[in-house]
């Protein structure tokens, strides 16, 4: 007899989506980060962060918050600090 996943006698391993949700919630709700625009993915046993934040210091805080929630998984930082150069062209909407 084969056991159905999630119905064995031992608790099933947690689905990665719950970890993703916890990290997203921490990054949004922790006053140290307060970032609602960071994408969190949990793939292949590691955490990936992407999106833009306003400064390198905030980027560091987001990685720290994610690492604190990640339960020992590697956290990959694909974030960027948003560039703030003046535009070189205007769009003509006349």
């Amino acid at each position: 007899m084969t056991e159905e996943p999630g119905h064995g006698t031992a608790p099933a391993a947690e689905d990665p989506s719950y970890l993703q949700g916890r990290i997203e919630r921490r990054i949004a709700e922790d006053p140290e980060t307060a970032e609602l625009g960071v994408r969190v993915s949990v793939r292949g046993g590691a955490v990936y962060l992407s999106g833009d934040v306003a400064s390198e210091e905030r980027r560091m805080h987001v990685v720290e918050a994610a690492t604190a929630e990640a339960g020992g998984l590697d956290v990959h930082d694909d974030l960027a600090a948003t560039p703030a150069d003046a535009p070189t062209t205007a769009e003509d909407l006349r």
Partner: protein
Amino acid sequence: MIRVAAVGDVHLGGDARGHLRPALTELPSIADVLLLAGDLTRHGTVEEAGCVAAEFRDLGVPVVAVLGNHDYHSDQQDEITEVLTGAGLTVLEGDSTVVRVGAERLGVAGVKGFGLGFAGRSCSDFGEPESKAFAGHGKQVAARLAEALDGLDGAAERTVALTHYSPVADTLAGEPPEIFPFLGNYLLAEVIDAHDVHLAVHGHAHAGTEKGLTAGGTRVRNVAQPVLRRAYAVYDL
């Protein structure tokens, strides 16, 4: 021609103070007015508003702003408005202003806006108090935008609708569709299309897309700084 610079979601605070200032010093040579599309702060505190005021004061062009959801987070939106107004910015919430540029006039109608979603997949003002509060606020902000635009009737040659939340789904492309009801509100677009609006400017959707249109063909631009990936955009109207 009126040259309109715009940016939103700058999320300033002590650690990002002065971040935009180098690019802003060039503003008077390339634009006639700067519009700020909300989320000027990160936690919505008066202290952060001081950073915003320092960043955008004395730029040599008029600055017209709406607040965003982050600017409401600490329930200090009224104090934030006072700080920004004290620095010479015009902060709109359900009202309008007219900026003179030479012989021309630019009318700006502004409201923070709110979520609700888009036709066929939006929330209704029905059910639990929490649901009615959400959808009711979505309806209320559209009514405020209508009042602001009504107030501009005939007062300017060019009109811009300035919001934080998006009036259309076009400029949310890149965001998960499941969260669109928290990012935009089609009632804002319905109001825009019922008035003589030349451009709608919004922020809020960091992973969205710059360019879109209302159903009636009005240009919409998402100027969230992470979308622009520069200090601001400039639109010639």
